[in-house]
């Protein structure tokens, strides 16, 4: 090692910081107020029971999100030449996310599962072309059928068959248009 290299190595440990960072540990007033011990399982069970027995009708809420999804599809079709594809996808993605989030909260876990697949599809889609929109429409139709049929469980083997059919449509789409899949996306998974 030359003298210059040695000096460089030693200097590496004496570099000035790149950014100033101030660390603050705020007083834990929350802990002081609530103390310790957690809450009992009986209370947790009661809360879960309350969640499972909620009488909220999901149908009007779902209809609202499904309409927003259709509006999103219409927006994409109207602005198909808009270079800002991210905004176009967002118009479809947000209502899909709401269906995913709320289905399971209001006794429709199958809606959550199906909408989750749609969110995953949209998250890696580069450009929402007509073929991709056809897939989104298929998801829309399926979710609507689940809501109208008041399928409140996981749908059993029919539910599974629906999910598999929609998954297969997505796989076929990306087989045909591999360039429309954003492989740089952190959630991108090569395995089918």
């Amino acid at each position, binding site marked *: 090692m030359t003298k210059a290299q040695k000096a460089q190595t030693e200097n590496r440990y004496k570099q000035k910081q790149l950014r*100033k960072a101030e660390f603050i*540990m705020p007083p834990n007033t*929350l802990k002081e*107020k609530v103390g310790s011990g*957690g*809450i009992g399982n009986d209370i947790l069970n009661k809360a*879960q029971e309350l969640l499972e027995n909620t009488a909220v009708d999901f149908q009007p809420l779902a209809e609202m999100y499904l309409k927003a999804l259709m509006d999103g599809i219409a927006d994409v079709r109207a602005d198909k030449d808009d270079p800002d594809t991210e905004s176009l996808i967002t118009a479809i993605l947000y209502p899909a996310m709401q269906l995913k989030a709320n289905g399971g909260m209001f006794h429709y876990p199958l809606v*959550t599962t199906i909408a989750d697949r749609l969110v995953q599809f949209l998250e890696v889609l580069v450009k929402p072309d007509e073929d991709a929109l056809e897939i989104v429409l298929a998801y829309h139709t399926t979710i609507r059928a689940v809501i109208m049929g008041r399928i409140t469980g996981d749908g059993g083997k029919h539910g599974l068959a629906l999910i598999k059919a929609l998954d297969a449509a997505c796989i076929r789409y990306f087989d045909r248009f591999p360039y429309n899949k954003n492989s740089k*996306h952190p959630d991108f998974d090569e395995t089918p």
Partner: protein
Amino acid sequence: MTYQLHRISVLVVEDNAPMLEITKSLLLTFGVGSVISAANGDIGFRRFCQYNPDIIIADWMMEMLNGIDLTERIRNNPASPNPYVPVILMTGFSEKDRVLHARDSGVTEFLVKPFTAQDLYKRITQVIERPRQFVRSGDFFGPDRRRKNLTEYFGPKRRDADEIPTEQVLKEQQQEANVALQKMRDHAGLEKGDSIDLTPEGKSLSNKRKSPT
């Protein structure tokens, strides 16, 4: 001994009325003393300034002011009564880059919908039992984004708070590194100055004496 949750207040900000009601009911069942509600981020911030709650639970996607913008306002607005208040963000998104985006806005915890009573309770326990230190750096102010508690760090220390190592300490560190390196060489059957051939032609790790130039 159990948590005295009746001593705290929680602000729930959610534009979906049934979801807001469910979250409120769960918190009241847990024993939370007071649950304040708001139908969007803008109202949420006003209620926050008015009541200064102990925890905020906010939905991400809301009209007017969403959960991320609300969090940024809580952390940075001079009118904020407590910029350190724990914010639990509820959302249907679970994709990594979106979670990172939420984290970078100063959110304390992330609650993915649909959730169970246990999920909500876990996040509340987390903000009570494992509060995170705050960082002010450049244009970021919020909970420390590093989740892992790395107690042992061996790399260069370049922060103001770090002690500057003396020449003697540096020498000792260098010696320790040399000993560790020698152990690795011994283990691999290499000598100082050997290079490793990692090309396909080399097939496996092999050591070649550098030819003198």
